[in-house]
């Protein structure tokens, strides 16, 4: 797909009409071409802005009463009831929120205060918990930077595609928008990192290969944590100086989340099955 073909597909992509190879080619091009990606994000931003700011308004009752009166109906309550039927908007998924531009991602990460534990923890490189804590601290302190900045889940998915050997999930976090991603490795094992923000608050997501962690030779977690995860429950730790750390598994992927908020607050933003909660240690 070239830039001209991309531009012709932008509107269809914004409205989620692209499928199959067309969709893949579109997001591949968006990943490769920053200018086209910007054009796509600009149009998507406008749609998102309208959805967020211009809510569906319910027809005023006095209007519905007037219509009933004029059409000779004797049952205005029935009309009012009928007016309560779901509007078209209610069928839409509220998937897209305000897109945060890349400049804010980098700006936010750079200006945020370094956390007390901002050292890379290199002595514990194989420890998943230490790795994710170090990456989180590094992103906040600014010495780790996203390799790609985008609010589009599809663009971020394309960034990881074919590079990890395990599925990277760009989750929809309630009230949070993805803003950037980074891919690195520890002992040859790919590590995927995603950053989400909302009103100046950050949720960091870490993902790696669950099978490799279970194997324990290149990456490891404490046995008790592994036991919790193998039982299908998330591991939750609130001892991170006001931050909460949650680990859970999704198929072949081990996912971790860290944020400066309480357990319940963080859980409320994550796409974890309620049946598996709570799993606090």
């Amino acid at each position, binding site marked *: 797909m070239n830039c001209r073909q991309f531009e012709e597909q932008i*509107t269809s992509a914004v409205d989620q009409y692209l499928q199959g190879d067309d969709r893949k080619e579109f997001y591949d091009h968006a990943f490769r071409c920053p200018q086209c990606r910007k054009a796509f994000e*600009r149009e998507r931003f406008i749609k998102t*802005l309208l959805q967020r700011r211009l809510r569906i*308004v319910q*027809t005023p009752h006095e209007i519905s009463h*007037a219509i009933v009166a004029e059409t*000779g109906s004797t049952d205005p309550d029935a009309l009012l009831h*009928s007016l309560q039927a779901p509007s*078209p908007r209610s069928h839409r998924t509220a998937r897209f929120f305000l897109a945060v531009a890349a400049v*804010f991602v980098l700006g936010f990460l750079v200006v945020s205060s370094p956390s007390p534990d901002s050292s890379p923890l290199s002595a514990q490189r194989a420890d998943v918990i230490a790795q994710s804590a170090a990456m989180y601290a590094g992103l906040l302190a600014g010495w780790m930077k996203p390799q790609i900045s985008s609010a589009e889940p599809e663009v971020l998915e394309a960034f990881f595609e074919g590079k990890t050997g395990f599925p990277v999930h760009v989750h929809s976090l309630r009230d949070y928008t993805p803003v950037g991603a980074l891919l690195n490795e520890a002992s040859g094992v790919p590590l995927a990192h995603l950053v989400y923000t909302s009103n100046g608050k950050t949720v960091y997501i870490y993902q790696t290969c669950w099978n490799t962690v279970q194997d324990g030779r290149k990456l490891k977690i404490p046995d008790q944590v592994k036991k919790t995860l193998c039982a299908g429950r998330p591991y939750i730790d609130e001892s991170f100086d006001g931050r909460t750390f949650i680990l859970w598994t999704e198929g072949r992927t081990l996912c971790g989340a860290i944020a400066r908020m309480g357990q319940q607050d963080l859980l409320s933003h994550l796409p974890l099955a309620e049946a598996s909660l709570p799993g606090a240690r």
Partner: protein
Amino acid sequence: MKAIGKTSKQREFESEALPHADLLYNYALRMTNNSADADDLVQETFLKAFRFWDKYEKGTNIRAWLFRIMKNSYINRYRREAKEPDTVDYDEIQNFYNTIRDESADSHDAQDSAFGNLLDDDIATAIADLPEDFRTVVILCDIEGLTYEEIAEFLDCPLGTVRSRLHRGRSLLRTRLLKYAKDRGYAVEG
């Protein structure tokens, strides 16, 4: 409460037409950008629909039928007053769009933040200022959540026309919002 003496026409009308009042009301509100005008337009639409209920072919898309009645009412009531041309000069719009796209391509990311400071009224006004054809598709797709197919049926035009009007409409809207933001001192100079 069971209505007494209600005719079958009234019952049918209430059950089939009135559930779509919100769709029409929101369209009217965004087209006129005035709640009093929207009230009048919705009432007029439903009264016409009731009057011509016998003409409605049962089983067809009632939303499209109601929408066409409203659109005709809107044209009759408001377009003449607004002195808006009956048709959009697409070449002119395209040229304008290309011009502003080139001029503003570099500074949008930082400027996006300025949109967050705009009032809802600013956004509603920017929509109301769009040329009618573009305004219609933006309202129906982005605010009312209708599919391209539905919009194409409403407007009796090809899907490709819906898509291209959406693309141009959003671009024009973006330009207007950037101008508002800049006028209010929010936008980053680019």
